């Protein structure tokens, strides 16, 4: 059976890249929401 290595490469590179990008994006969103929450609700102190 012939394997389409360039297609496989696209799946792997695209997949790994997407996972990395999405988790990085989530990290940024978490950090941003912490900043916003601190400013909006507690003037510098996170609500508990």
């Amino acid at each position: 059976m012939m394997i389409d290595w360039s297609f496989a490469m696209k799946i792997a590179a695209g997949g790994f890249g997407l996972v990395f990008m999405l988790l990085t994006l989530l990290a940024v969103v978490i950090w941003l929401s912490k900043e916003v929450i601190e400013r909006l609700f507690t003037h510098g102190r996170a609500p508990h």
Partner: protein
Amino acid sequence: MFGLLESGFAQFYWGHALMIVIGLVLVYLAIAKKMEPLLLVPIGFGIILVNLPLSGMMDYELMLRAPTAGVVMEIGMNEGESFKSEALVCKLDSGEIRTPVFGRVDTLRVTKGETVKKGQVIARLITMQQTNQAVYPTQPIGLLSRVFHYGVMWQILPPLMFLCLGALTDFGPMIANPKTLLLGAAAQFGVYFAFFLSLACGFTLPEASSIGIIGGAEGPTTIYVTSILAPHIIGATAVACYSYMAMVPLILPPIIKLLTTKNERLIYMKPKLRKVAKIEKIIFPLVATIFVILFVPSSAPLMGCFMMGNLLKECGVTERLSNTMQTAFVDIITILLTLAIGASMPAETFLQPTTLLILILGVVSFASAAAAGVLLAKFMNLFLKEKINPMIGAAGVSAVPMSARVVQAMGQKESKKNYLLMHAMGPNVAGAIGAAIAGGVFIGILR
């Protein structure tokens, strides 16, 4: 009269005996060694049940149809006879009809000399083998085959398991230190490394994806992806995933020691993380659901259930639902899922050289995932003012919470001052999210 020939002994062969021994070993490891007992006892018992011939627990009915019209020249088998895959059922003047699976003949619906039409039923076969449903649709007729078919193959039980896992997961450590999300992402390297190795070993793209995802170390993700892309290897991938999760204490330490110096393992991290506000814990599952599913729609069943379970836990107004998911519901799903997985391992399909290869590739996937997490942590230390202990990178392999506990134990061994558990929980839960995304990407491209 009911004699030995009508009993299971008539069909019993060494393969069944070997699989029953494997089932007994899993049950022994669970009971005597306390290795993942909630998973290994039902899986082991399922293996034993399905390898008792004629029990019918995992039987499927397959109506074999004539691919073309023709006259029956010769009948190749008798009713009640067992056969292997590709056995001759009958010869038509227009070609041969062979079995696509192993199993036994229940009834033959044609006789020699009869003219058959295209699509006419030739025989009713009983099999335990998974088929390509588009070409050879089967109907489950046994207790466990029904659970497996409607629970696993219809992709109901794995997402429900994710719902319960969401209710059991605390994203607090990850939210407190968002950098750890990157470690969970790095660990997905193992998935793609094993994907390439599997292709090099001759597996197809869907099979290689199902093997690679073992490195995500999330049983439901592995089962979900395999049930869609390569259902014929689901037994091997599931048992590899759950076995390696049980063996995390054996797999991770040598990899961590190989890739880190004593000084790196001694890096001190403050035991207390910042306190995460309730509103942050509520926002996270909502934002993660929207972002991830917009980018990778096919990850919706897993991500959606995972995050909904977590939201029900964190929102504070659905305590009853959350409590049910954390107790009775997760137990019910665990029983059904693991019993069905055990039952997907009949000797005829499990005892193949490819199974051994899948088990080897699975451990490579697992090990390379842990290694990638450690290496990224070391790389990040080149830029960070406050260094992180690179051992926590290995917890990016998921296997929640076992790998975080292993990191904690190793940290304590190096220095009694080092409490790494909460730091390791960050990459640990991030790894679970990463695996669900990676699985969704494979499904989105290859389904």
